């Protein structure tokens, strides 16, 4: 008897361990508690309402199940004749109403907290584009360089197309994550350049729509350093599933060092805009810019996806007048998905990508575009 019981116990124990590790690994069942006061409050609120629902469900469905089991004709049940009771109706109107008030009180409190974006230390503009995010750090004083960069999914296409094994952070990795300090109130000013997107980090319980022509504000104070991942939550077109949000929350000193370095980089880029580039460098950089910004629509081989997204290979525009080609990239094509890249890429990147498309996919114009020339056209466009 005893050995048998032992065997069972150990089996159950083993099964429990196996099951619980599996749950931790892949079977995420619930909302994350997150790393901010608001996210924990939201989680508690969620659990509170969930348990209310479970309790009500248990009561209602028990009565129902009991009736189904006992009040069946096959058991000889004879139906009663009662069919109304004002008293009962009043009771089951008032009780749910009272429960709703109990739910509404904490909900109102958490919402009021979540809406208080005042007294932030750092303001970051979050701008949605089809299909990437731009982060612009608001300058603290006038002689700072403006730090801004695009954050684009870095999961290779080959993984999506099942030609390479998928990373652990499949679809949730970007080239340039947003960096913020911990224990600091950071305000996000969320807007969009084209369609509506939504910026969402589950661990912060922050989700805000990015709407063209509007600036929405939201905020967070992250308490734990770490890498936090989210995704665009509002359908924004073809690549909606491929614009993740990644936030590095770091210690204040680390953030300050990073910010200073970004300042330096911005200064260097501004100065380099007057440098002369070689064909080799331009093509190499152009290919990178293309694969980050253009490939979703115009495709890796420049074939496009006609009719919405025209081919670049053999295109009249790409093989035609150089200045018109550069202007098209700067200003976009209104009414189509072609965005105005003058505000999204710097002159060096624009020059490189124009050089690249005019000398790839079978196009052979031989043109080498210099950043300075692009800069002139950008100034003219403004």
């Amino acid at each position: 008897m005893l050995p048998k019981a032992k065997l069972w116990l150990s089996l159950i124990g083993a099964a429990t361990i196996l099951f619980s590790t599996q749950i931790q690994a892949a079977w995420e069942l619930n909302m994350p508690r997150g790393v901010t006061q608001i996210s924990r409050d939201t989680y508690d609120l969620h659990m509170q309402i969930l348990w209310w629902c479970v309790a009500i469900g248990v009561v209602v469905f028990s009565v129902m199940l009991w009736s189904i089991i006992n009040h069946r004709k096959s058991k000889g049940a004879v139906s009663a004749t009662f069919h109304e009771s004002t008293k009962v109706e009043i009771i089951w109107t008032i009780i749910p109403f009272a429960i709703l008030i109990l739910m509404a009180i904490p909900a109102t409190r958490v919402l009021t907290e979540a809406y208080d974006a005042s007294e932030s230390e750092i303001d970051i503009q979050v701008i949605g584009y089809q299909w990437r995010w731009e982060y612009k750090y608001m300058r603290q004083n006038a002689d700072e360089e403006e730090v801004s960069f695009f954050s684009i999914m870095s999961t290779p296409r080959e993984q999506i197309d099942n030609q390479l094994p998928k990373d652990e952070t499949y679809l949730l990795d970007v080239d340039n994550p947003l960096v913020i300090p911990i224990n600091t109130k950071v305000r996000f000013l969320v807007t969009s350049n084209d369609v509506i997107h939504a910026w969402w980090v589950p661990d912060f319980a922050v989700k805000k729509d990015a709407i063209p022509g509007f600036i929405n504000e939201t905020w967070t104070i992250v308490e734990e350093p770490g890498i936090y991942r989210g995704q665009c939550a509002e359908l924004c077109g073809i690549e909606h599933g491929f614009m993740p949000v990644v936030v590095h929350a770091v210690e204040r000193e680390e953030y300050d060092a990073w910010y200073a370095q970004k300042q330096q980089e911005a200064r260097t880029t501004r100065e380099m805009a007057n440098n002369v580039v070689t064909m080799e460098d331009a093509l190499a950089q152009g290919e990178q810019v293309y694969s980050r910004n253009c490939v979703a629509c115009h495709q890796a081989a420049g074939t496009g996806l006609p009719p919405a997204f025209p081919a670049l290979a053999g295109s009249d525009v790409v093989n035609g007048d150089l200045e018109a080609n550069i202007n098209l990239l700067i200003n976009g094509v209104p009414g189509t998905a072609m965005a105005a890249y003058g505000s999204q890429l710097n002159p060096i990147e624009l020059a490189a990508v124009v050089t690249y498309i005019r000398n790839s996919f079978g196009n052979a114009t031989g043109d080498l575009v210099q950043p300075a020339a692009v800069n002139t056209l950008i100034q003219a466009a403004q």
Partner: protein
Amino acid sequence: MSASHDDHHHGPAKGLTRWLYTTNHKDIGSLYLWFSFAMFLLGGTFAMVIRAELFQPGLQLVDPNFFNQMTTMHGLVMVFGAVMPAFVGLANWMIPMMIGAPDMALPRMNNWSFWILPFAFAMLSATLFMEAGAPNFGWTFYAPLSTTYAPETVTFFIFAVHIMGASSIMGSINIIATVLNMRAPGMTLMKMPLFVWTWLITAYLLIAVMPVLAGVVTMMLFDIHFGTSFFNAAGGGDPVLFQHVFWFFGHPEVYIMILPAFGVISAIIPTFARKRLFGYDSMVYATASIAFLSFIVWAHHMFTVGMPIAGELFFMYATMLIAVPTGVKVFNWVATMFRGSMTFETPMLFAIAFVVLFTMGGFTGLMLAITPADFQYHDTYFVVAHFHYVLVPGAVFSIMAATYYWLPKWTGHMYDERLGKLHFWLSFIGVNILFFPQHFLGLAGMPRRIPDYALQFADFNWISSIGGFLFGASQLILLVVVIKCVKGGKKATAQVWEGAQGLEWTVDSPAPYHTFTTPPDPKLIHAQ
């Protein structure tokens, strides 16, 4: 002469023209129901494509653009093609028979309101074969994705929506005119079956909001073709205005799809519990309250657009209030079953499943109403799970329950009970495997409307897809049951179900082509 003259008028015409020219409420009801079943299979096919692509991480079957076309078309076809016409079909068949009227009040308009529907859906579906592809901006078609950034086929979509709207408006005018003017003597408003009540209220909702939908698509049309900027921020317009107008239509629309379901369930449960519906009056008032509240809660679909906090609070409180009348309904159904004498034929099984699973959809609805929690749930699979629970084991199960319930009355034959039960159990198991894991996916952070997902979502998507295939395949059983029942089977009595009450059970099965050409005996009309 008079004999042949009578024959000519009392039976249906022969051949295809019978269906084309018919003004008979039963024929038109059948047309609506067959059409909606066809659309259910079409929209279901789109859903199968979606679940197949989501079976595993990575892109396997379709490209993201086609995936978006599938989610959009699935939603549009199911809402406007499957669920709404099915309820109109049930209304056409049952309302005149329930209130003792010879036909609908406006029979020629009835014919027209049906026959424009196939054209609307032909136009919408045709976009799948066009170069620019079908609409790919979601069934909620938020601007500017559906205007400035839309494929050219959006114009076909707009016209299709206009036609569907016109059809719905005509259908609902017809129902209101019938219910208010053609009740048999003795059929007072508070003696009407709840299915008639819920449809009367639904019809008013339709008349109120369908023009709003027409308005919003017309504004889109002008933005796209005539240079206006209603929704274009660059031209001084407001993309959020689109959402306010859309959801002012969209939220009552949700109740348009569920109120008639409440009516169906309120007919079936008393029949199989062999006991009068508990709290008839409170059911009527609860339905009216839900209809009223449906007009003042629309922005709970938009908690993340950045409304002022006063707006957020108002819409949260108003939305939570809906739980009260909805709760009353559920309690009344349970109280009807309590101390009844129940049997569990297929319609009852679907009705019980409706009460349980719709209530679960109601619970998640209450959770979604809590604004700060909604910031986490919004636009995730939690929302997908929620509205599929209220729409599939909710609205769709009620339509199936109604089909099994009234099929003997329509065809004169009993359906195959064993196949019916098989259909129920496979649907019940399938629908829960399909949608229950989606709650977990949403809470864990999977956004909706994505063709591919991060690896931590793989297991539940796999399970969900299996459930989807099971549920999808099971629906073919319904087709078999209906065809078998139309062709033959055990003869049905006029009463059909032991516990059934109401005028429709006083006429023969199958119901004669013309019923109640003279009003029924007022003694047959009982309080519900």
